[in-house]
């Protein structure tokens, strides 16, 4: 019998749930919700820059927008979205009924809510939110230069997000090590699970360092310590070392799980097994380890020891090798296949096309003399958006279209999905490709106007037009999702008919999977 469940019962169910699937979906909703704000901030930035002497935002508000665009997109959009996919799929892929610590899992999600509230709340206190960029370099974040309590709220918000990351990482590692079904040895795990094992390890090692660095900023601000205050014998460069020791690996935190998603999508629609499974696993682990040895490449213009710079440049080049292995393995995966161009596949192939560009500009940035020239210019903005938008966001969208039927029991419209892809792919290139030229021409990043350089205006207007295309893609995606969610559930367990190629458990359980996923724990042969 179909009982009428009241609205409040359902709300209570979502609030008190410890089901990894529901928690995963809440992560995705949070990410989508914050993305609207992060995207709107980006729109304001682009509107401001479309004329040399933009008057839409005051310089202070502009600095707040760019700081919070970065913070929100990284900590509250990309990372939660990837954690959402991981939360939902990893236990199913290894044949478990839930994460190892279901209550902890709920806690890691719910602590993100006060974290996000602190971030949004920081706009409304006297003096407003952070204005120093998402990197929050002292002394600009010191009390003398940013007196606003908004900065303290930003720090506390990051602390809470960091707690969420650390606890979540522990949960993922314990789950993957201990909860695998009989017969599921490490080298039988699907690549998404592998990327999560490596990724959670990165989070566990790196995040406490960020927490430490911003805590030192906090005590400098509140208790009068002098970690980063030159007058007290402190050193602002120390913060940069600590910050990038987290924030460079954070790039891989935002990349690896997405690479895992793409490694599920590409074989499915090329109707071929993934090429070089072991190579991909080793490349993932290699990126995870070398990722900790390259942070200094963010600091080539600070004047750190040239020998240290040579080392960091070399390691940065080395990390291109496992990244290249991944790209070539994906290309070999689609090579010779019979490709079905579903929206998920298009996002997956689009990801490869864009990520190659991001990787190539990454190699150029490892070349110190060139990096010094374009550091803190739009070239770097272009590079990082090719990695984080062309990389992470494209993989998230590939994963979303691919797993939407599994999560909801409904297949999104492929027609609208196709349009979404082209709007976002063309818009992305229109926005970020010209930025390479701006950077080489010498347009510094994080400037609210450029009245003395009117020759930058034309390219900036093209970029703003690109933003409009991305925005159109985003609106189409939202419409597609909500329209699909109103339809009845009808998707079969294996809506893409790929079970014969992919030996993974998520396509063997119903869509959406039943509570606790499996009646009897499967045995993997």
């Amino acid at each position, binding site marked *: 019998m179909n009982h009428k469940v009241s609205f409040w019962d359902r709300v209570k169910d979502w609030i008190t749930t410890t089901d990894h699937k529901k928690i995963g979906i809440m992560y995705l909703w949070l990410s989508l919700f914050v993305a609207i704000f992060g995207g709107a901030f980006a729109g304001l930035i682009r509107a401001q820059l479309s004329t040399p002497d933009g008057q839409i935002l005051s310089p202070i508000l502009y600095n707040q927008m760019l700081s919070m665009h970065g913070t929100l997109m990284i900590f509250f959009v990309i990372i939660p979205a990837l954690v959402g996919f991981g939360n939902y799929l990893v236990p199913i892929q290894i044949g478990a009924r839930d994460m190892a610590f279901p209550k902890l899992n709920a806690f890691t999600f719910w602590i993100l809510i006060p974290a996000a509230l602190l971030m949004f709340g920081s706009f409304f206190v006297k003096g407003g939110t952070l204005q120093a960029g998402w990197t929050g370099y002292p002394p600009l974040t010191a009390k003398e*230069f940013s007196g606003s309590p908004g900065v303290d709220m930003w720090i506390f918000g990051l602390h809470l997000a960091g707690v969420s990351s650390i606890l979540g990482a522990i949960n993922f590692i314990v789950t993957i090590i201990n909860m695998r079904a009989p017969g599921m040895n490490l080298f039988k795990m699907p690549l998404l699970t592998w990327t999560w094992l490596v990724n959670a390890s990165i989070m566990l090692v790196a995040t406490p360092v960020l927490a430490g660095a911003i805590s030192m900023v906090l005590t400098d601000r509140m208790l009068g310590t002098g970690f980063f205050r030159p007058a007290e014998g402190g050193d602002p460069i120390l913060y940069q070392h600590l910050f990038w020791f987290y924030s460079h690996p954070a790039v891989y935190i935002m990349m690896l799980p997405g690479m895992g998603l793409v490694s599920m999508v590409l074989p499915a629609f090329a109707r071929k097994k993934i090429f070089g499974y072991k190579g991909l696993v080793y490349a993932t682990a290699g990126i995870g380890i070398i990722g900790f040895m390259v942070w200094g490449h963010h600091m080539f213009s600070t004047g750190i020891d040239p020998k240290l710079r040579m080392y960091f440049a070399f390691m940065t080049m080395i990390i291109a090798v496992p990244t290249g292995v991944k790209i070539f393995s994906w290309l070999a995966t689609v090579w010779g296949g019979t490709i079905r161009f579903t929206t998920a596949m298009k996002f997956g192939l689009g990801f490869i096309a864009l990520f190659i560009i991001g990787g190539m500009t990454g190699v150029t940035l490892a070349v110190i003399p060139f990096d010094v020239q374009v550091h803190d210019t739009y070239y770097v903005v272009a590079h990082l958006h090719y990695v984080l938008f062309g990389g992470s966001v494209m993989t998230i969208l590939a994963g979303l279209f691919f797993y939407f039927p599994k999560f909801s029991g409904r297949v999104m419209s492929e027609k609208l999905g196709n349009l979404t892809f082209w709007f976002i792919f063309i818009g992305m290139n229109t926005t970020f490709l010209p930025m390479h*030229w701006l950077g080489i021409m010498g347009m510094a990043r994080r400037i609210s106007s450029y009245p003395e350089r009117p020759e930058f205006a034309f390219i900036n207007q093209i970029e703003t037009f690109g933003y409009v295309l991305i925005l159109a893609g985003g609106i189409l995606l939202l419409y597609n999702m909500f329209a699909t969610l109103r339809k009845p559930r009808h998707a079969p367990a294996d809506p893409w008919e790929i079970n014969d190629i992919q030996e993974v458990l998520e396509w063997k359980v119903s869509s959406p999977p039943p509570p606790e996923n499996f009646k009897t724990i499967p045995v993997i042969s």
Partner: protein
Amino acid sequence: MKKKTLFNYALILSLVLLAQAAWADTPITNWLQDPATPLARNVRDTFWFTIMMIMPFFLIAEGLLLYSVFKFRTKPGSKPATFHENVRLEIIWTLLPALTLIIIAIPAYGTLKRMEVPPQSDLVIEVVGHQFFWEYRYPKYDIVLVDKPLVVPVNKVITLNLTSVDVIHSWFVPAFGVKQDATPGRISNAWFQVLEEGTYKGQCAELCGELHAKMYITVKVVDQEDFEEWLAKQKVQSPPKLQTGASSS
């Protein structure tokens, strides 16, 4: 579908051309078009060398992708290939990029050495970053310039000692190939030797607060005679030394 993909790449290509057209009209010198110092020329050479080394990989990867997209689409009756590993191929695509990267690194290190080890200095200038202007001191001549263009003689080796009194700034003049952070509590170094007279522009490249965008840098490069004339004029005016509290080395 095919048409759309083609259209898309045509769009990207036209964008690239547009960007280049806009760039060709710009009056501003930059390190790639008009490098004004030997160092900036080195940077440009290193850049083109890097681009040439990685371009084959870029073209091969994007080419393979594009080829696969057009060639391996599903048709009725088509069967996918079944290969999924090839150790030799995997070793090749690991070693070949690694080797290329080493080749890229070597000239880059040469340029780094030239950045770091300046020739015998002809003129030392102390650069002090402030929110939101630059202060230049000529210790040799006892001159202090506050929020004024830096004036230096042409063809001379100018070494900069940079620091800041408040937050981190970055002294960035693209045509010189110089970008160096000015960090409070630290002294960092840079050097340049401009080969042509003229006015060069740059700006602060490290977010330093509200008016970061307005923190311009102007460098006037003049010949030795004009420089000495300018020096004489400055000495007559003899501006008071600014008390900043910064360590003046």
